[in-house]
């Protein structure tokens, strides 16, 4: 089977591909730290401790996020969150925080290097994501601030709608090249720009 994106390399190859004006915008979404926070918010003192340490209220409703720039807390599960920092020094003293959380009946894991982030925008963003993912990205059911873990083809992926125009997604590092290729191929028919990286 022919592959129209045979020569696609990776998210660093900034430029325009396919038709103009492009229907899709892709860019790496950079972040300085990503920590997996676990614990049962219904059990004191964990909840209070977590909110104090990061000075933001953990989103407890499934598939929601809480944002206090430069921090974003994404719901991963009933007792699990991903806290992402988009600026250097926004998340520090990992060990101290981990110990504090352990003491409070929770846990903290550093997963900063585990995944690659991409931003996907443009009029065709929803269509392109929906080619490889069974989630309903229509604003009616995937509103601003919603996040959901699902798949991109056969690869697990996390999707987060930052605003009406912009999705950000995370894919595990070892799968990233194939996943990127998938995105590019889905986008090529509408034309796409790869922009320089910008913050998560």
């Amino acid at each position, binding site marked *: 089977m022919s592959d129209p994106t045979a020569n696609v390399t990776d998210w660093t190859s900034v430029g325009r591909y396919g038709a103009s004006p492009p229907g899709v915008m892709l860019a790496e979404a950079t972040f300085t730290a990503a920590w997996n926070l676990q614990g049962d918010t219904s059990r004191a003192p964990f909840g209070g401790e977590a909110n104090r340490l990061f000075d933001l209220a953990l989103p407890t409703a499934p598939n929601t996020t809480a944002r206090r720039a430069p921090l974003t807390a994404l719901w991963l599960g009933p007792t699990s969150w991903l806290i992402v920092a988009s600026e250097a020094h926004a998340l520090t003293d990992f060990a101290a925080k981990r110990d504090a959380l352990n003491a409070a009946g929770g846990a903290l894991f550093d997963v900063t290097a585990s995944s690659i982030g991409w931003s996907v925008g443009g009029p065709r963003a929803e269509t392109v994501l929906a080619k490889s993912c069974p989630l309903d990205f229509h604003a009616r059911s995937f509103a601003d601030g919603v996040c959901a*873990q*699902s798949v991109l083809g056969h690869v697990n992926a996390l999707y987060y709608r930052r605003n009406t125009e912009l999705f950000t997604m995370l894919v595990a590092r070892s799968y990233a090249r194939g996943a990127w290729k998938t995105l590019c191929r889905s986008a090529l028919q509408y034309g796409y720009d790869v922009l320089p990286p910008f913050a998560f």
Partner: protein
Amino acid sequence: MLLIPCPWCGPRSQIEFTYGGDANAKRPAPGAPEAVWYAYVYLRDNPAGPHAERWLHSAGCRQWFEVRRDTRTHEILGCARPGETLPGAPA
């Protein structure tokens, strides 16, 4: 393709899930007699009709939960988080 109601994430496509089988197979206490362990490890409820089964939302929230599904029609009758009682129990 099933639309599986994750008790946390809501209805999601089957491809996000991993099957866990008979939910009535409950891990015995360590000291339980060998016969009890044998039944737990090898015997399965396998009804043609409503079936209590476990699913893991493996590509989603990573939670194991229970679903009652009619094995003749694939119709899902209810779901429950661990500890909750699974609705739609056959009368």
